[in-house]
């Protein structure tokens, strides 16, 4: 460090050029804070908010999911499926997707969960009324972009979620 400069009669490290530049940066920082809060209120930082609800649809199946999740924080998937002919209610989720999160609960509970190639098939009692709404409480473990896939019969839906650290 150099010697402390003298401003008029007082010896003080005042640097007005730096101070003026910093005031500008400070104001930009405030704007950034407002934008961050706005984005969070809209849901872009995960948890609740208008922009953190998305729906993907295909014939006979509808998926509600949160595009923005937080690592180890609870999130939900809601799957609505129509009864398949003579087959009760089934849907399949990509195992790749499931390996990146934990399923905490499934409501209602499936009759069976079986591995079918690279997917897990969830089968529900056939006597439920159609369409059946299934809620999956999930908790993402990996950080980053998570690509999901859900299948119902021969229909397949892809969806993408971002997990914040």
């Amino acid at each position, binding site marked *: *460090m150099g010697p402390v400069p003298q401003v008029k009669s*007082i010896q*003080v490290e*005042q*640097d007005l050029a730096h*101070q003026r530049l910093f005031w500008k940066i*400070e104001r930009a*920082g405030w704007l950034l*804070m407002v934008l961050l809060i706005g984005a969070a209120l809209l849901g872009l930082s995960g948890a609740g908010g208008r922009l953190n609800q998305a729906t993907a649809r295909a014939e006979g199946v509808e998926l509600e999911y949160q595009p923005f999740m937080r690592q180890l924080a609870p999130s939900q998937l809601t799957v609505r499926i129509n009864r398949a002919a003579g087959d009760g209610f089934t849907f399949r989720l990509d195992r790749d997707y499931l390996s990146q999160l934990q399923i905490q609960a499934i409501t209602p509970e499936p009759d069976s969960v079986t591995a079918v190639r690279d997917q897990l098939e969830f089968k529900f009692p056939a006597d439920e009324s159609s369409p059946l709404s299934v809620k999956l409480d999930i908790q993402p473990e990996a950080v980053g972009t998570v690509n999901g896939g859900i299948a119902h019969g021969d229909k397949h839906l892809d969806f993408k979620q971002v997990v914040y650290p």
Partner: protein
Amino acid sequence: MDSVLRAAAIYVFLLVIFRFAGKRTLSEMTTFDFILLLVIGESTQQALLGDDFSIINAAVIITTLVAIDIGTSLLKRRSQRVEKWLDGTPLIVLENGQPLMDRLNKERIDEGDILQAARSSQGLERLDQIKYAVLEKSGGISIVPK
């Protein structure tokens, strides 16, 4: 590894956010400021620890935070530029009894704050008794009487 990165991220985030908040934010603490500080500490704690409440995790996090703090203090000693960016610079806010209004406004302080500092540190009664009032890096106002 996770704990070190968490601690570093929180350190940098707090550094930036409190620089944006300005010098005065937590220097003169009111009761409410104190409570605010506690709440900030509480919300930081969760993000720092994650779901791991082990002693080793706490030890790694504390070591990381203190090490980064030592590191930045060393950097500040080496480079005046770094010091200016991290700590800011002192600012003369009153000269020969005349408040420098644009500076006071930018730093969100008023004549009352200067008078309070003058009374408590020097026992002065009026602005015209002050030669210099300096808003220090720490956020305090120091008074040089005439």
